[in-house]
């Protein structure tokens, strides 16, 4: 909290230096770790000649910072808290926890093969159901 207040004050006191302020402000407002949308469209890939269903799927991805306090972040692991403490002490050498998928799910795809046979297959770990700090 003290660090964040300092950052805010610094950003305000250097408003004249637009480049520097932008960097500081951007760092401060970067969103916390969360799931974001990414859609893979099989039709737009031109794959409708062999993929029968689905037309596409929401793959999602994880993005954002794992910042203190980790309670702000979705699904922070216990180890992520320890990792962040270490990072706070040794920021130059210890990396921050990463924002990455914590829960994945499968999709089923119905498609033709080269012999015009039809395959209904499960593909695991294709969709992000939840993100968190690791």
């Amino acid at each position, binding site marked *: 909290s003290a660090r964040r207040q300092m950052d805010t004050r610094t950003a305000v006191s250097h408003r004249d230096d637009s480049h520097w302020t932008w960097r500081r402000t951007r760092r401060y407002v970067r969103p916390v770790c969360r799931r*974001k*949308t*990414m*859609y*893979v*469209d*099989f*039709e*737009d*890939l*031109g*794959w409708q*000649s*062999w993929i*029968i*269903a*689905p*037309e*596409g*799927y929401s793959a999602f*991805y994880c993005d954002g910072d794992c910042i203190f306090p980790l309670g702000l972040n979705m699904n922070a692991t216990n180890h992520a808290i320890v990792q962040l403490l270490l990072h706070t002490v040794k920021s130059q050498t210890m990396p921050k926890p990463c924002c990455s998928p914590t*829960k*994945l*799910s*499968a*999709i*089923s*795809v*119905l*498609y*033709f*093969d*080269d*012999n*015009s*046979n*039809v*395959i*209904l*297959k*499960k*593909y*695991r*770990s*294709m*969709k992000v*159901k939840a993100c968190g700090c690791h």
Partner: protein
Amino acid sequence: DSTGFYTDNGLEQSVMVSRIPHRVKKEFQQEILTLMGLHHKPKPRAPGKETSAPRFMIDLYNKLHGSGASGSIEDDDEDEHPHFFSRTLENEMPKLNSSDVIMSFVNHVHKIHFLRHERDRTFFFDFGEVSPQETVTGAELRLYKAKDRRGRHTTYHIEVFTIQQGVDEQDKILVPETNHLVSSDFEGWILMNVTNAADSWTIMPASNMGLYLKITDMSTGQELRPNHIGIVGHRGDPDKQAFLVCFFKMSQQLHVRRTR
């Protein structure tokens, strides 16, 4: 020019990833194909979605996903349902319970030289693209029988044999695979269990020499051609052509992707 990839632009609104260079887009596509276990984009020859095998699979897909709204499928959590098709249609198709992959095979008997002249009695299903690491949990030969036009009430004995190599190269032997009794007035799909044959073809694709169908009138002992009792042959309706459905359980090792 669409890319096929759409991402969140931070304003709770999806936008096309329009700045992906062509080369990178190709690499993305190749990565997704690799995730799907494919080396290249399949190029099916004139795939007719109205023929029997694709229609069966599309119906199955729609049943498994409720309304069939293909763009909004929510599949099972992986930890809760170790096998994919476990939650629905268990009464209808018990083999779904232990299956990860379902595959329908089109009859390619016309491609096999020694089977060509018996096209309605013989079947050849190409298992060349099935990985030997997949385990067959069940296989059904599906034959459509229309009403018997002869108008007699009788029972038919339907036998399916696997064709195997004899001692000489020219010799072929028939090994019983399964059999089924059907009434002359039956109309619909006849399911013949050919799990043993599919299992052999998966492990040893070279042993696949096709299937042979034999039909006997139980009241006279006379052998009949399939079309005589109403079984739809290669000249019949496309949506009633015979096909094979095979259920596979994938080896867990297949999910470990190799480092490239």
